[in-house]
């Protein structure tokens, strides 16, 4: 499955040569569509798989300037612009790509930021192959989304370029309205609302339960996919815009939402508390030591930096043989994190097949390259633990009992349902089990706020402008949609902020 690995240095070298050819051709006259289609697709340079699997540094290294200009010139600037409607927030994609073609990186990122305020993050974590890139004309011509213009990599390139070259321009905030907005949660939805409301001249305070801001971008998405320094920079930029961050503040307990709106004088509030309630398998043995939700496992590593063994006080669980159950991005993250935390063998156990896995293909490929094993059409039905008089090992997980499955008729998600094969019980040994089955909504705010309606799953009910059933309160992101993506959370944040700004202007 793993193709021959090409080093970053090799890729940079080929790109330089191709770039010179491109410049020659451009000097000879404007590029035709045929010229553009003959530019080779630029692969994303990565670290060598087996080495990077033991390090926390970012895996995708980013394009060089030459790669960016080459890739940008593959874009046909087609009239229909299907990529724009493929983007959940409708970034003006062909326009920013055109600027990159000409080497105007600052102009490119400025265009992106008219719509998407977190390009360094979205360029890294958006599932572009299901969004903008899926619609790309070039990809459609080749009948392969993998050959579409690498819009995400280009977005990341210009965002990184702006940051690394210190070209970030702060928006000018000319008037101060005297109105106060409370943002609950510092994940992508909350940060987006903070930015848009601050730009409109309102005084914004972001309340965050953790000791650092960033939400799932901080505790969930691992360091090697999204460096925390980037998240910290985005938070810093907001502080420069005048946004106040109150960390270690749990709205619903430290103050209720009503107290914020009355005693603390906030004129409007936005709820972006996310989907942070882990789902467990609800099978016997799930209480054994060494069984973790992916949230706990990743939080110990990402947020609490447990991987810095000689400095961090937070313990992490030493395990050599780890099983991860689940097939989404979080499962891939947990599996790859386990390798970096010293596991010798990591296996993903998934009840359907590779084709039904919701994880991004890129994440699955990276996991495989790094040595993660995949077992399809299997699912744990019981967790087995050690019974011993030795208290040091008693109660530790020693394996799972699993069943084998076949695919039957499609279920509500449209994917074929796994049907257990009778008599197929078998044991798979392990010394840690990570449960990555998704998250439900954090229930605290709904429980502690009167008049805030939610559905049976705890998703806050909103209208077309993200307004909730409670006056002066808006909501967006995973708390409304269920566990989704950074870009969708941002999109809802923008809608909510527009509605809040309109309300406060009255």
């Amino acid at each position, binding site marked *: 499955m793993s193709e021959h690995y090409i080093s970053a240095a090799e890729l940079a070298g080929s790109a330089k040569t191709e770039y010179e050819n491109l410049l020659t051709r451009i000097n000879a006259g404007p590029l035709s569509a045929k010229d553009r289609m003959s530019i080779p697709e630029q692969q994303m340079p990565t670290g060598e798989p087996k080495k990077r699997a033991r390090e926390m540094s970012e895996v995708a290294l980013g394009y060089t300037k030459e790669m960016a200009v080459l890739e940008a010139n593959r874009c046909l600037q087609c009239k229909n612009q299907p990529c724009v409607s493929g983007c959940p927030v409708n970034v003006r994609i062909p326009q920013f790509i055109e600027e990159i073609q000409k080497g105007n990186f600052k102009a490119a990122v400025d265009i992106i930021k008219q719509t998407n305020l977190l390009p360094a993050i979205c360029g890294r974590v958006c599932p572009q192959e299901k969004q903008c890139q899926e619609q790309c004309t070039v990809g459609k011509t080749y009948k392969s989304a993998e050959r579409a213009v690498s819009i995400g990599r280009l977005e990341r390139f210009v965002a990184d370029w702006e940051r690394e070259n210190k070209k970030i321009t702060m928006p000018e905030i000319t008037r101060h309205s005297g109105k106060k907005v409370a943002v609950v949660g510092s994940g992508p939805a909350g940060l987006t609302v903070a930015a848009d409301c601050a730009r409109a001249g309102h005084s914004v305070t972001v309340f965050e*339960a953790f000791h650092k801001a960033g939400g799932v971008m901080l505790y969930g998405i691992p360091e090697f996919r999204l460096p925390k320094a980037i998240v910290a920079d985005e938070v810093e930029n907001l502080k420069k815009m005048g946004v106040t961050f109150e960390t270690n503040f749990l709205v619903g*307990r430290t103050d209720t939402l009503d107290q914020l709106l009355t005693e603390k004088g906030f004129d409007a509030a936005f709820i972006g508390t996310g989907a*942070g*309630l882990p789902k467990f398998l609800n099978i016997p043995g799930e209480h054994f030591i060494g069984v*973790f939700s992916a949230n706990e496992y990743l*939080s110990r590593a990402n947020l609490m930096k447990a991987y810095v063994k000689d400095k961090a006080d937070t313990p992490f669980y030493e395990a050599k043989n780890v099983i991860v159950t689940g097939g989404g991005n979080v499962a891939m993250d947990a599996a790859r994190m386990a390798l970096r935390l010293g596991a010798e063998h990591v296996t993903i156990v998934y009840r359907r097949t590779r084709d039904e896995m919701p994880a991004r293909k890129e994440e699955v490929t990276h996991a495989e390259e790094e040595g993660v094993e995949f077992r399809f059409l299997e699912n744990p039905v019981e967790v087995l633990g050690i019974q011993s008089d030795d208290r040091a090992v*008693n109660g530790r997980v020693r394996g799972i009992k699993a069943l084998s499955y076949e695919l039957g008729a499609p279920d509500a998600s449209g994917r074929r349902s796994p049907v257990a094969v009778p008599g197929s019980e078998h044991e798979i040994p392990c010394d840690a089990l990570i449960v990555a089955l998704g998250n439900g909504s*954090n*229930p605290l705010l709904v429980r502690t706020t009167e008049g805030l309606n939610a559905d049976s799953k705890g998703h806050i009910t909103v209208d077309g402008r993200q307004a909730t059933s409670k006056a002066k309160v808006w909501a967006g992101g995973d708390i409304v949609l269920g566990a989704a993506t950074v870009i969708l959370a941002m999109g809802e944040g923008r809608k909510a902020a527009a509605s809040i700004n309109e309300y406060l202007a009255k």
Partner: protein
Amino acid sequence: MFKILEKKQLSADVFYMKLEAPEIARNRKAGQFIIVQVDIDFGERIPLTIADANATEGWIALVFQAVGATTFKLSQKNTGDELPALLGPLGNPSVIEKKNGPVVVVGGGIGVAPCYPIVQALKDAGNKVIVIIGARNKDLLIFVEEMKNIADDVIIMTDDGSAGQKGLVTIPLEELCKSQTPPAEVIAIGPPIMMKFACKTTEPYHVPTTVSLNSIMIDGTGMCGGCRVSIGNETKFVCVDGPDFDGHKVNWDTMMMRMGSFKSREQEDFHKCRLEAQAEKLSSV
């Protein structure tokens, strides 16, 4: 930043710390806890019950035992120092009602400290409150005077008989259950094994018993499941569904097993921290 207003040592490894925390003191109710960190970058998040608080004066008090890295580092801080992170008040407040009969509050070891605000609240609600305090020996007894000031009766038990009567807290507890005026409710807080046996004592007498669980936590807001316990047939999170639970439904064996998840690491760290602190003291002489 949260300033330490007062710090004193209550016994061998047990410390009392009063912290400036007006936001937390304001909404805090008996039974709730906080999560504290001594360092933002590499510090651990640990839960500690709020032993006392004053909303007008804007402070909360913690009582903790130095057993691992974080509690040890906390014990090394002094009046005037500041802590970088304190989150609270967390958890569901204790349910306090006027009962038709005495309420017995049993505190074991440092569990006596979180009992204190509960006894205050029970008295405020008009209850007759009998407090049973247990410790291994007289040097480990804490909050005795404080309890005597507010409770209707205080029974002291020590394992070695060096103070009060000799024996475990379950002895007077059972006597009260058998008496003419059995307890309308029992609240037991202390080491899990003590809470387990307090519940086993009250069960045959059908006395409703509430316990406060102290599982390992990471976030304290319900997002990781690290603190999960088995209550009846259901999985509950101590940080958001608790910390109080019906003691007769708690699966004590599972809970105690999970509490030991990082025992060897904890002991290692505590040992290391003490050695480092000693070395520092010696080198500065």
